[in-house]
């Protein structure tokens, strides 16, 4: 098998099994990759380059002029966009905590008892699969001050009613609840898979020794699912940065800018007010966050490969 011919790249020695077709294989490979590469270049690589260029420019009439770091100074200096950043950081942090702790707790519940409890899981799967626009319309109804079920329930319990989405203090948490309702099951799925891959006797043994649930959670389950926790945190952040459909349907960033998130800000600046420079700069900030996360993940995976 090991008779690599002439031009064979030594680094790919493992696939020497088809020496006779290597040359033609190369040409075929490029042909097969061509459609994907064209679209990757135009819709993934080029936009990254162009948005970085755009972030250092501003529109003056019909032309773009170079403005250095002005756009970034605007983003970090202007109270309006500062609040957007603050909203986003708060929202992402909350969803990080929710995806990890909420997801794990729901998964532990789902992992109990009967093997086939698809019926019990359906509610949480159904919301994952529904469009965020539908989910948001449902909650528009739930939150409605006049006919909303939420105020009905609160009123019934003797608690004060609120105008949820018009109250600057309640609107962002209100949006977060919508996101939580939709996505909690998604994160639970990953933990559920992790829990089911643990050997049964590990969990059983702990139950018999009379340790409390919290001890078991902290000292046995939590360390064992830590790779999943890392993974879930990553997709939790990615997910919450990308979902803005509910902002469109429920609040349009209001009241008083209280619910504007980074991606919604990109939309407003770029598509409503045509400030492409500012919108590009915010996109670059988002890209920087994503890149940092990718690097962290890479480092983490390397460490695991080397030291475990």
């Amino acid at each position, binding site marked *: 098998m090991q008779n690599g011919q002439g031009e*064979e*790249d030594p680094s790919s020695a493992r*696939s020497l*099994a*088809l020496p006779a077709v*290597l040359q033609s*294989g*190369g040409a*075929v*490979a490029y042909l*097969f*990759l061509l*459609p*994907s*590469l064209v*679209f*990757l270049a135009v*819709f*993934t690589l*080029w*936009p*990254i380059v162009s948005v970085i260029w*755009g972030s250092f420019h501003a529109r003056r009439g019909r032309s773009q002029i170079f403005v250095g770091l002005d756009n970034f100074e605007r983003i970090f200096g202007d109270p309006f966009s500062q609040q957007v950043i603050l909203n986003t950081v708060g929202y992402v942090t909350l969803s990080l905590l929710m995806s990890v702790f909420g997801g794990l707790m729901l998964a532990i519940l789902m992992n*109990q*008892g009967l093997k086939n*409890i*698809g019926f019990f*899981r*359906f*509610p*949480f*799967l*159904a*919301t994952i*699969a*529904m*469009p965020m*626009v*539908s989910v948001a*319309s*449902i909650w*528009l*109804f*739930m939150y409605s001050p006049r*006919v909303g079920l939420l105020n009905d329930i609160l009123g019934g319990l003797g608690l004060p009613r609120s105008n949820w989405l018009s109250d600057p203090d309640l609107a962002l948490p209100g949006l977060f609840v919508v996101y939580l309702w939709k996505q909690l099951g998604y994160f639970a*799925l*990953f933990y559920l898979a992790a829990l089911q891959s643990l050997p049964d006797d590990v969990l*059983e043994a702990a139950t018999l020794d009379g340790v409390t649930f919290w001890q078991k959670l902290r000292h046995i389950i939590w360390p064992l699912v830590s790779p999943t926790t890392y993974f879930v945190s990553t997709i939790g952040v990615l997910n919450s940065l*990308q979902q803005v*459909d509910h902002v469109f*349907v429920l609040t349009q960033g209001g009241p008083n800018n209280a619910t504007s998130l980074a*991606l919604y800000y990109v939309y407003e600046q*770029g*598509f409503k007010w045509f400030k*492409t420079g500012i919108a*590009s700069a915010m*996109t670059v900030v*988002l*890209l920087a966050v*994503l890149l940092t996360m990718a690097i962290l993940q890479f480092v983490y995976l390397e460490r695991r490969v080397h030291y475990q």
Partner: protein
Amino acid sequence: MYEIDYKMTSQRKTWQKILPILALGFFGLVWMVPLFWTLAAAFVPTTELLNGGPLVWLQNLHFGAFEQAWSVAPFARFYLNTIIWVFGLLAIQLVTISLAGFALARLDFRGKDQIFFLFLTQLMVPATVLILPNYQTLVALGWLDSYQGMMAPYIASAFGTFLMRQAFKQVPKELEEAARSDGANWLQVLWHVFLPVTRAPLLAFSIVSITYHWNEFLWPLLITSSVEVRPLTVGLALLVQSSEIGAQWDQLSAGTLIVAVPILILIALVQKQFTNSFLSSGIK
């Protein structure tokens, strides 16, 4: 399995089994409340919904809200548009990911690592973040307000390509060599040998792609402007915005259900497959 089987422990064990199931059932019911409320709102006139209990509701069931919603917004057309863009995209993606995945898994060529990294970039930078520059590209291409414009950022799929690459790597070499020695070219090998044994990952990818794009909103909203192209999600959002002032909740609820029900049925039918597919999407 274990020696300790006193009455106390076994009783405790029974409770330990039942309690979480009860908790999960209760939690699941609470989780469904918004959905039930929407369901009720779509079939019961809003005044009865507010004043009466479930008994009054049952006496006042009507389907008028669906007819109204269907006539206020051209949902039939939106349905057609969604189906064309979601399934058209899927068909193209299945071709691109199979070809690219095969090349990365089974063929040798220069620059493989660099190309691999290029795909990886797409996993790191989701298309949603790149709406602004991609919109500008569509303007330059003249693809605004078109199906191909909606599809373009997703035609190359790093997730799908990696999924297929992984699956193709597990196909035994002997199968490939047998076909090659019979004189089949690579395209025939891919079609006759590899694709028939990788239906599971193809299905998994399809489920993820359909759900994701059926539900997609922001990108179609930005680039479409005519009824002939707009998908369901955008149609619903416009209905919500137009009816918010008048607060015609029964119409709104009916519209919400019109958009969400097909996906809910799909999930109910393939719940297990759906779960596994979404777990594999976590490869990201």
